[in-house]
């Protein structure tokens, strides 16, 4: 098959690059290295985004195609497809990488249908065989791992957040601006409504503190919020389905088969038994810590570290100890 470049979709929101943009470029570079080809990036945003885009050069992007328009302050699926098509008209690509974020998961299948190419989603590993991308993706909620390849190029791939850690390398990218019209568009994105305070999303945080039914009631979440606070700005809250179904926590925090799939560096399961559907959402975390009063809780079978005990004693002590050691160092 003809050897092509790799193209990465660099997601922006409200005129700023999102962290997953750097991850998509890093993943693209990993694949490009396996293919022996360069990696390019593309993005849309309001005027001024081109300046931010240049920073992608440090993550491996050779050329960065940017479409600026006031309308692109919000996600613009139709315009994104037009930009993608325009770039594919200029160069030959072997693969297009999207982040498996809310935007990427919406855009990648549209692109696949437009281009009539196969799409592998939520990919956790990338390589190449005979010049064709090979992607690794969990299926059956992580109960099996599939290795897939593609019959036609470019291969479309979305990469799971937090798996391909953004990594700098020496080098600079060349920013090229491309004209793309915001219209026509069959749907209009009006903007994003956030809660009282904008929190880091559980799928993108590198540290997750999840609470389950063992928390006893929504009024007790201050205990977990305090631990999140002690852990710092990269930490956020998660939840089991039991507490979401009970209405104690919003659905956006649910981790598991019918919630979000997370791959943080550190995952705390607090008062969570470890049902198979919960494990489906967090088993790829790098380190899992369980705090549960039941020594036979299944969560201990997959946890790397654990404490058997009453969470209402253990968690406040943990927050205090973390603050103590941070103050010391």
């Amino acid at each position, binding site marked *: 098959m003809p050897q092509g470049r790799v193209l990465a979709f660099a997601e922006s929101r409200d005129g700023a690059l999102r962290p997953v943009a750097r991850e998509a470029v890093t993943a693209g570079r990993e694949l490009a290295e396996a293919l022996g080809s360069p990696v390019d990036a593309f993005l849309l945003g309001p005027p001024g985004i081109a300046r931010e885009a240049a920073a992608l050069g440090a993550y491996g992007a050779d050329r960065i195609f940017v479409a600026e328009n006031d309308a692109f302050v*919000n996600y613009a*699926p139709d315009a994104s497809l037009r930009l993608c098509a325009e770039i594919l008209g200029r160069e030959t690509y072997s693969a297009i990488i999207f982040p498996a974020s*809310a935007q990427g*998961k919406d855009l990648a*299948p*549209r692109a*696949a*249908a*437009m281009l*009539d*190419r*196969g*799409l592998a*989603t*939520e990919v956790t590993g990338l390589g190449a065989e005979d010049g064709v991308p*090979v992607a690794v993706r969990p*299926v*059956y*909620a992580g*109960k*099996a*791992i*599939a*290795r897939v*390849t593609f*019959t036609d190029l470019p291969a479309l791939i979305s990469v799971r957040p937090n798996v391909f850690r953004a990594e700098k390398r020496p080098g600079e990218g060349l920013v090229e601006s491309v004209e793309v019209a915001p219209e026509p568009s*069959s*749907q*209009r994105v*009006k903007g*994003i*409504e956030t*809660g009282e305070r*904008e*929190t880091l*999303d559980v*799928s*993108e945080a590198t540290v997750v503190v999840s609470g389950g039914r063992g928390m006893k009631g929504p009024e007790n979440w201050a205990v977990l919020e305090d631990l999140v606070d002690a852990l710092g700005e990269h930490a956020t809250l998660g939840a089991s389905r039991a507490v979401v179904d009970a209405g104690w926590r919003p*659905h956006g925090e649910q981790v598991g088969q*019918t919630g979000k799939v997370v791959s943080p*560096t*550190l995952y705390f399961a607090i008062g969570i038994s470890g049902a*198979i*559907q919960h494990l*489906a959402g967090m088993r790829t975390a790098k*380190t*899992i810590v369980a705090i549960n009063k039941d*020594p036979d809780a299944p969560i*201990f079978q997959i*946890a*790397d*570290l*654990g*404490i058997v005990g*009453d969470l209402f004693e*253990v968690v406040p002590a*943990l927050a205090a*100890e973390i603050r103590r*050691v*941070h103050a010391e160092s």
Partner: protein
Amino acid sequence: MKSIVCIKRVPDSEARIRIAGDGRSIDPSGVKHVMNPYDEVALEEALRLKEAAGEGSVTVVSVGPEASKEILRTALAMGADEAVLLQCAGSPDGLAIARALAAEIGGRERDLVLFGKQAIDDDNMQVPAMVAELLHLPCATVVVELEIADGHVVARREVEGGHEVIEFDLPAVVSAQKGLNEPRYPSLRGIMAAKKKPLEVKEVELRESKVEILSLEEPPARESGDVVGEGAEAVPELVRRLRERALL
């Protein structure tokens, strides 16, 4: 309000998954199958829209083996008016499934085409937006709130840290996230009524897959780790171990 709901037959979420002898698929023996849970949410939404409008129809469509008739009957028992099984063999990928669905849906009258946000087996989360693109319809995926008035739709979709508000006109494609509604159970009367409702079976030839499965493996086992101790006294040791791993 005329809705079409696409539903998939999937292994129950509790099912133990065993890799088949070919190393590329799962062994279906002894696995209990159900309607994909998100598709129940999509179907519920279609039923409520019809009930609220006081007129219209709900058609359910599934691509799959003969055994998928079972979930179509469940859908009829929940209240759908008619069901279509696009019966196929072979190894389809998401795009092949989307093409088969688009071909069927394209020839039908419809205001709204509903999907679950994701099938809990293959977890691709791709068929809905593909169908929308193939039919040139506006689309909102992972929807948690849907308001429809005079053919205009305001949808709220789940995104990181909030809800994205998206607007478009019917006809359109929507994929349902949990929380959009609470799906009903089929009633005994519904189950009886379902027996008389039409379930059409069409043989379809699926296009070849562009995503080829090379192998399927069990995930690397996670070794169970250490319980560092009991109660609050164990906390300093836990923190020491976390620092040892450069995690704090």
